[in-house]
């Protein structure tokens, strides 16, 4: 009996893993765009994958896994805050932030800063639309909002970033 249960769990686990695996690349890209730090992003995707596994029964049959999982990743990115423990570890981190910024062009630094200033919902819409190239329908499904709201968020984000983009274009 135990063996049967274990076998059943293993099969379910493998099936879920097989569904999830192709989405991890885009999930890491989304988390990196939202957190702008690679270790934070990986942490967020790990937590999201764990949550997805635990909540897999809540997913309605036939629901597309991609927006469902990306929504969990996006929520995880919002909830992730640098806790006290994490700040204790900061001194051991590599000089990635400053060094990576130094290596970036001025344009990418500008856009990173501008992204950080956007509210979470607007930043998510911009990233989904212009970095992951999702359709407005997918942006809405992932953001958990209506199609009109998704369009509005993308438009607001674009307006907010336009000044930065124009300035960086003029410099180059």
């Amino acid at each position: 009996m135990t063996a049967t249960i274990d076998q059943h769990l293993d099969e379910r686990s493998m099936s879920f893993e097989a569904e999830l695996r192709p989405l991890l690349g885009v999930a890491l890209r989304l988390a990196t765009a939202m957190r702008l730090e690679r270790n934070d992003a990986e942490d967020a995707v790990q937590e999201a994958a764990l949550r997805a596994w635990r909540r897999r029964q809540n997913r309605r049959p036939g629901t597309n896994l991609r927006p469902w999982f990306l929504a969990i990743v996006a929520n995880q990115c919002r909830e992730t805050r640098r806790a006290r423990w994490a700040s204790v570890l900061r001194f051991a981190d590599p000089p990635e932030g400053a060094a990576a910024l130094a290596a970036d062009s001025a344009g990418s630094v500008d856009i990173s800063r501008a992204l950080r200033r956007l509210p979470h919902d607007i930043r998510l819409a911009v990233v989904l639309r212009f970095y992951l190239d999702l359709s407005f329908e997918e942006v809405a499904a992932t953001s958990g909002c209506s199609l009109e709201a998704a369009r509005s968020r993308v438009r607001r984000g674009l307006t907010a970033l336009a000044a930065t983009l124009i300035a960086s274009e003029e410099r180059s």
Partner: protein
Amino acid sequence: MSDDHIEDTLRARLHEAIDPRVQGHAAEERVLAAAMRPAGRFGFRVGPRIGAAIAAATVVLVVGGALGVSLALRRGTSNNGHPAPAATAPVIAPSFSPSVFPTATPSPTPSPSLEGIQPCAAGVLTARLHDQDGAAGTLGGDIALRNGGRVACTLEGYVNLHGVIDGRVVQLGVTHSAGGPLLNNNNGTLPTVRLVTLQPGQNAYVAFENSDVPNGPTPCASTQTLLITPPQGGRAVSLAGMPLTLCGGFHASLWIDIAPVSSTPYYGTGTA
């Protein structure tokens, strides 16, 4: 600037800013391993940073406790029976040295060791350029990592690379088996991650590929020193006297593609 132009520019800027920071396939495997293992599925999962913090806190408590006991013993009952004052453990920042540089990028979920063999720390590793190949702007080679310790240790996965450019330590645009013309020349089969056990004196190899031809808007840069962080994180091994010119590629500035640590060199063995 038209709306379409703004949108196109935004797409380009986002890729330019974010792509170099995105982790590769190894991160995907770590995510799966961490999320799908039974402890994660059914129990409480300790994240990599929290786990490291708990480990650090444990060290602080143990050291602090030991100091406290030691002080109490030295002082005898000088505190009139009151508990000895708690010792405050100092926060020790990593030390800098020419050969071992603290560029810790702890791998979020280090692989378990093989029958008690520990992952190789930077302190026991030395690095040298084993071989170099390539032409027409694309270069490749193998970095040999030698276990200079007295016991066997393991390496598994991808190293991280920083370069020293104009006196500054800079994260390189490392991609993992991105499929460049040299590393992807092995009958289309990209190198795979394997656990490599290094006996004392043995070498493991990291194949790399880079472009020294300007490609895209990002400027090229030259480095004479590479800082190689082992897959499990920690300090880095310095490889000096290795002139490399790094340009853009695969959406990364200062692009350098690497293969996972391997027990055999990739170049000069007929595979490339």
